[in-house]
């Protein structure tokens, strides 16, 4: 079990910045998720914690000990990889046993521990198989068993579910969270899937262009986004971000008028509102436009309204049906409106 601190971490390759000014404190037993688009620096940050990349600057500490000069094999971390990285020449049993052999765990303990780990991931019946004879989900579980077998201080998981189909992903997600709670091991999980992040994390680190955009619990990230990047990245469909102008506390953009906002932010701003906080209205509407698209999904209907040149997404009632191009009015939940600076794109409070 370990607390991990990153201070002033930078990673450069020539003039390219992979990771920039990362300061982070991960508590013991915490499940921390690094979330962001491809190339945002999340995997690089994780690899630096694993010891597979060297930071250009900054310090990595585990339980107060500086780890920068400690080799990957001497850090007590276990990693699960996107492509599973099972050793193809070894059986599942040998794969799971490998870390025990490498770390000189007493031989007499090997068999018991391998079988315990395999049981935990429900793989006991497949120990004799080679990796190529396993399904994707089984391979992922074998990789997980290999990581947990020696009970490391830290689990690192690099998009471990991204190669699985949606249903299996959901099952594995539950399993991973369950195992993490059971073993009480500090876990860092990298993903670009916001659902995975929201469901698994104690806290989420959102990254973009090598920098941390926001750190917080899933609720904080969802309800209190720090900037337009976070606001647009979390939520499906993402938050509507409407460029407009605030004057005397009234926001206006083509087709959109929202009065009684904070007048001290007057000037060009971006108004944010999530699709589930927009409601179709008969009167007192904040937005007037034409129906551009209606997408029933069974439990709800996604409605797209064209206001000026901007498409606004609305989560409407499941029974909502209207032909295209007819006029439509939408009212925003005033409690759930967000204002962002149009230049810095930071949240205005």
């Amino acid at each position, binding site marked *: 079990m370990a607390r991990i601190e990153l201070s002033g971490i930078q990673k450069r390759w020539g003039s390219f910045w992979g990771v920039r000014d990362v300061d982070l404190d991960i508590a013991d037993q915490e499940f921390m998720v690094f979330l962001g688009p491809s190339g945002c620096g999340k995997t690089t940050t994780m690899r630096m914690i694993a010891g597979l990349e060297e930071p250009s600057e900054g310090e990595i500490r585990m339980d107060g000990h500086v780890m920068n000069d400690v080799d990957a*094999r001497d850090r007590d971390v276990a990693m699960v990889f996107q492509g599973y990285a099972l050793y193809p020449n070894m059986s599942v049993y040998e794969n799971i046993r*490998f870390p025990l052999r490498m770390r000189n765990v007493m031989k007499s303990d090997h068999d018991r521990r391998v079988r315990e780990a395999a049981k935990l991931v429900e793989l006991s019946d497949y120990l004799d198989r080679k990796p190529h004879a396993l399904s994707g989900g089984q391979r992922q579980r074998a990789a997980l068993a290999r990581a947990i077998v020696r009970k490391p201080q830290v689990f690192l998981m690099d998009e471990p579910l991204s190669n699985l189909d949606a249903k299996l992903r959901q099952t594995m997600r539950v399993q991973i969270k369950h195992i993490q709670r059971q073993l009480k091991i500090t876990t860092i999980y990298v993903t670009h899937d916001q659902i995975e992040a929201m469901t698994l994390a104690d806290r989420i680190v959102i990254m973009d262009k090598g920098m941390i955009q926001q750190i917080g619990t899933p609720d904080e990230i969802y309800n209190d986004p720090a900037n337009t990047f976070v606001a647009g990245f979390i939520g499906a469909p993402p938050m509507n971000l409407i460029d407009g102008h605030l004057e005397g506390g009234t926001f206006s953009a083509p087709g959109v008028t929202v009065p009684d906002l904070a007048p001290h932010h007057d000037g060009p701003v971006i108004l944010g509102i999530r699709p589930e906080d927009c409601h179709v209205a008969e009167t007192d509407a904040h937005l007037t436009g034409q129906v551009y698209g209606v997408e029933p999904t069974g439990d709800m209907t996604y409605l797209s309204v064209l206001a000026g040149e901007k498409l606004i997404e609305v989560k409407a009632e499941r029974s909502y049906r209207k032909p295209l191009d007819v006029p439509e009015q939408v009212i925003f939940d005033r409690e759930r409106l967000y204002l962002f600076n149009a230049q810095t794109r930071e949240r205005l409070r």
Partner: protein
Amino acid sequence: MMASQRRKRGESRILRYLILGTWALFCIVPVLWFLSIGFRPRTEIITPSPIYWPTFSLDAWWLLWGDWPMGHYLRNSVLAIIGSVLIDLVLAIPAAYSLARYTYRGRDDIGFYILSTRMMAPAIVAIPIFFLFRNMGLLDTVWALMLVYAAVNLSLVTWIIRSYMIDIPKELEDAARTDGASDLRILWEIIIPAVLPGIITAAVIAMIFAINEFLFTLLIASTRNAYTMSVALANFTGGSDGVIYNAIALAAFIAFVPVFIVVVLIQKHLSRGLTMGAVKG
């Protein structure tokens, strides 16, 4: 419509078999011819009139294993070839791993230098090698042949193995490293098993080149002491009895058989190894 398509497909298949069959015949006839000469009496071979029902004879066989030191030459060949391949593998595997996986200044130049040793004509280094081995007192020994074969093939073996190593996902090594393995353990337990087909291919290619090596063997093996099959065959004309074609043919056939068997066994890997060595990396 369907019938005409089927007929066309059938015709194209016949044509394909015809071409392949002709080529196979072209390749196999000399070998069979050798075999047939090798097992016929000497007089029958040099007779000018055609013989429709050849006589089977083991004269040449007994001559090869009796008067001619065939066993000695074969032993020299096997020792020199196996020794050289072992030297190649011991040197090439770590070199290939380094070229495939580590980043350091001059890596590509070193890689190119290794490959470039294969580009020059062997004759260029023949004289220096002769003097080198003479000064080392290794002339006319199997040890010298081992070293020369190993040196000649080292670049090719390194590059073939390297091209296989490049194909191994980096994640495997990262996984092994976080599991606690050292670089040597990773090489031994993860990389080598994963590139075993490549290693076998490289070894067989090196073996074939070594079997066929002639120039350096001729230079180094000045007496029968270090003769291998390739040089012995070239020097094998008979003696006081004149040219003994049947024995020459049989010896050539015996030299050919092991290579043929090995190539047939690994032909799938062989083509991959050769093309990868040629185009990758």
